[in-house]
């Protein structure tokens, strides 16, 4: 009897409101920004990539930034690999192949194959957020699954670029694509 009452109460509570769930875009990209920063920490570039000890690590956004300032906030005052982090957004990227990390937003899906083709062979860690990006040979894909941000790593492509992805990062990847 009491149990039935409790169950009834539970049902009423659960249905009392019309559900209105949606991804929180701003939060999603804040989390993705934090991931980008972590990728810069957990990926090793081959010797000779940096010309000097003090050369900053360059992160570029190829296209309109979906981060709304959050990537700047994450990078501000932080370092990776003992290097200062420098962010270049759309207009500031003159030579994409000089970037160490290049983020390709989903809004560039139409041109993603060409963008990745241009970056190929320059030791750039490419990070994207769409299936098109992964299909075109992007290295790390960030995506939403079960309300959380996940990532896949294409390790064949990172090997080709001479990037060493730490085992810690690989362990946490949802999928590691090896072929």
């Amino acid at each position, binding site marked *: 009897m009491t149990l039935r009452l409790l169950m009834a109460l539970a049902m009423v509570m659960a249905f009392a409101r019309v559900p209105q769930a949606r991804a929180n875009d701003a939060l999603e990209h804040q989390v993705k920004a*934090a991931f980008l920063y972590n990728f810069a920490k957990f990926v090793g570039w081959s010797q000779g990539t940096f010309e000097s000890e003090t050369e900053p690590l360059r992160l570029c956004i190829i296209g309109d930034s979906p981060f709304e300032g*959050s990537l700047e906030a994450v990078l501000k005052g932080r370092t990776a690999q003992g290097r200062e982090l420098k962010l270049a957004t759309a207009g500031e990227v003159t030579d994409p192949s000089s970037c160490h990390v290049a983020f390709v937003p989903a809004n560039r899906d139409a041109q993603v194959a060409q963008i990745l083709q241009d970056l190929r062979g320059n030791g750039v860690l490419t990070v994207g957020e769409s299936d098109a990006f992964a299909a075109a040979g992007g290295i790390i894909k960030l995506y939403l699954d079960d309300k959380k941000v996940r990532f896949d790593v294409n390790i064949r492509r990172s090997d080709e670029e001479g990037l060493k992805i730490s085992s810690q990062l690989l362990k946490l990847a949802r999928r590691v694509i090896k072929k």
Partner: protein
Amino acid sequence: MNKAIEFLGASLLCSLAFVWIPANAVAQEEADLDSSMADVLGDLSLEELLNIEVYSVSKKKQKLSESAAAIYVLTQDDIERSGATTIMDALRLVPGVEVANVNNTLYSVSVRGFNDRFANKLLVLIDGRSVYTPLFAGVYWDVQDTMLEDIDRIEVVRGPGGTIWGANAVNGVINIITKSAKDTQGTVASLLIGDEEKGTYAVRQGAKLGEHGHVRLYGKYFDRDSSERPGGGSAMDQWRNGRAGFRADLDYGDDDVTVQGEYYNGKSHIESQSALLVPPYQTAPFRSVNDYAGGHLLTRWTRDLGDGEQTEVQMYVDHTDRQADGFNYYRTTFDAEFQHNRPVFGDHQLIWGLNYRMVSDDSRSSFGFSLTPAARRTNLFTGFAQLEFSLLDDALRATVGTKLEHNDYTGFEYQPSGRFIFKPAEKHTIWGAVSRAVRTPSRAEDDIRINSAVVPPGFPSNPNPIPLVLALRGARGYQSEELLSFELGWRTDINDRFSLDVTAFHNSYNQLRSLNFGANGVELDPAPTHAVQFVDIGNDGEATTTGAEVAADLVLTEDWRLRLGYTFLSLDVDDTGAIETGIDSASAQNRAFLRSLATLPGGVEFDFNLRYVDSLATETAGVATRVDSYLTGDVRLAYELTDSLEVSVVGLNLFEDDHKEFGASVFAPGSATGIERSFYGKITLKR
């Protein structure tokens, strides 16, 4: 002991020296007081980032490092790389948790003192299902297992969790959480064989379940060898166990439904002696068989209502059978729970819930153990509410709440707590809590009679011409044990590479269980006629504990990490007038561990643990047993042969042939056995 402390101290210093250089560079950078959400996110580890729900605005709920409680998390990676083959052994690498083997099958696990095989101040949950037994308010650890590969994480909360978790969460809560079926797609098969581990076979298969769901099926069997009897020879404590289960997760957008079930069956053995009413009044040592079986079925439904509001309904049925030396115990538990959390007055958060639990049991008594009445059904009703305030632009948050329950043993019980968390500066968090918690009586404390020994006629302690039975018995008037706890903690991320977590506590216990000499008399049944001296349980014990726990995490390079833990505990028990129970010396004063997790060039994982536990000096009813301190180490090497095949080799307890970890206690007499050095190899196929 001193050497061990010196060694750990030296390792800590070396590690500190290593990370302090980059730390300065970071410290000089200006602290951005107007820290935005994104800035906070930058401080999170990858594991933490993976746990943030971007659908929910409530970031606080998701972040363990922002809890106003002493929390430590073992991730799947931590468990795998510890080399542990049981959940209990993995818990050895959590600061503040005491794990000691009485022998190979009896585990004593506790937090903040009072360790015993029947330790009763710890709540253990597996996927939201309480696995503590209301029979003695402790845990039958020999049945707690699952596929270790499918555990997502183990969250350990030290200190009272009474407000949210309910009675029995007096000194801590261990929350074992398995992965969603979605994250366990594909096949995993593993084979583990060694000198103590005679074979562990585990298989899991994941599959899609319609359009919205995923499911996994798993099975596991293991067979373990006995430990070393003092003086040599097998201690007859073999253990084998089989289990099979499933978990299905259905995702309908805002509604998530989980259904899981399991059946297990096994036998754990100990060397035992039983009391007899006729000469020689005690049997020869024999292999006592704990024959157990059980299973459960659980459903949980969570609904996301948006804007940080959530509801959860959970129900489960759990059945367990256990038979040992003629005493059989059968129990069915039904539990239903509802929880609701929502933001109120802007950024504040309200969590409330209701719970009903029915426990129905039956037993068959032996000469040694009996319950009166043999069968009993009890009801437990619980409600709780907790409000979290956010003050000073989120720099200060406070939580107040209480739990109110009604149980059939002591009636109403309340468990309030107040907590705060304060961020005085970037990278520093200070938290504190004052809580009251109770440990409600167990079925045994109400209804049991244990004929623990028979003293032959003519012995100094038995002047009668007939045998004298020493009988321990429960009392219906037995009250809840009470705790008032004060905690203070400090967490800091000095930089990307070094984080530190320090907690201090002072606990004051009242109405602790005591054993007192009771009535005596003559009994005709069972024959032959015998005298009886009762030992009654009472609430005459008082105790205070003071202690500290330290956890440190050091990232030396991207592929090499160290984790350190240190625990100090001072326990002062006042059981004046009662029989000495030895509880005050069954927990070590100092414990420490250092674990190293490294990936060598070429992809070989090389991990080791060093574990130190101070000496124990138990004195139980005048019989002293001493357990020496020990320092031991474990090593693990693992290598991925192909994309889907991993091999690992592990050596456990390497420093000695065998070592003891625990002494005798009132409820677990007989001597502890030597836990032996062991090796095993493991092959895991994942595809």
